[in-house]
């Protein structure tokens, strides 16, 4: 990344600028790949861009940053995404 030598305050883009936001999550989206019809509604509506669109239009979920809002599960017409309670890691 090009750094600019200027007097004013500049922030530079970084993935996870607020840390690993996946820790905010209470419910976790679980994708059932067999049910998915590749409509990509979850991808376009995800507010965090944590639903990753693959080359063949299948999707995968970035659990490191997913905040668990549940919009993807709610907009899925075939109910391929379900929300499950997060279990505490020991």
């Amino acid at each position, binding site marked *: 990344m090009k750094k600019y030598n200027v007097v004013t*305050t*500049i*922030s*530079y*883009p*970084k*993935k*996870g*600028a*607020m*840390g*690993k*936001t996946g820790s*905010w999550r209470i419910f976790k989206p679980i994708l059932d790949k067999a049910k998915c019809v590749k*409509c*990509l*509604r979850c*991808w*376009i*509506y*995800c*507010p*965090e*861009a*944590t639903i990753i*669109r693959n080359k063949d*239009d299948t999707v995968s979920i*970035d659990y*490191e*940053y997913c*905040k*668990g*809002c*549940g*919009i993807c*599960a*709610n*907009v899925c017409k075939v109910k391929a995404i379900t*929300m499950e309670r997060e279990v505490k890691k020991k």
Partner: protein
Amino acid sequence: MAIKDLPDTECVLPGSAACPGCPATMGLRIVFKALGKNTIMVVPACCTAVIESLHPHTSFDIPVMNIAFEAAAAGASGVEAALRQQGKEDTTVVAWAGDGGTYDIGIQALSGALERQTNFIYICYNNQIYSNTGIQRSGATPYGAWTTTTVGGKTEFRKEMGEIIQAHHIPYSAQTCVSYPEDLYNKLKKAKGIKGPKYIEIMAPCPPGWRFPMEKTVEMGTMAVETGAWALYEVENDKMTFNGKSKLILEKKIERKPIEEWIKYQGRFRHLFKPEKDVKRLKAIEEHTDQMWDRYRRCYL
């Protein structure tokens, strides 16, 4: 245009400071998909100024300038003038402000920029409150809604910013909603291709501000359009066309759903239903919406 055809460009990086279920980042993702990376954004004080996250990092992968609350359009005018001087006229300048920074505090700068025919896109994401500062009333808050400064419900109706903008007779203005990504994308693509000032307003249902569960953001936007509380339209050189469901409502091909269907899911209207139903105020909201649609039909059909 289907969802599959939208480009992969991603300028909102994961791990931002937005609330879960935020409509602003949802809208921003589609905005950047339409405008591409050759864009400079000007952001006044609003939720987006927080979503950018903390120095020395930012979640937006494009140049962003933060500016005072009232100065979004003025700042964008300056950026546009500087780019014009340097001969970089293919860069899109976007002012992205909330409804407080558009309806109330920023209207003077916005009106000035539109009058000067500045070549930029002004986007207002309208969540009908000052959410960033903790849910205060704004000019866009609808009648009867609770905010921390209108306890017991707002007693005035919201103003029609779209019609104020139309009075400037700019080349392009539009109203859209985050729940309709294709509509939003098409309108931005169209705005990008037009020279001169463009104004786009995006309905953005805010989960903490409106008091509804965070997974319902998309549903609330859809309901706002289907009940007629929000209209999807675009105005091109003073010619107004309605889009999608709003067009069907305007032409009376479908009956709009009662506003009650939309507001009963929102905690900010809870006092209209509990402990008993406030029929008088619900009727007032319904009548006001009917008046709005009658006006649309009279002027634009």
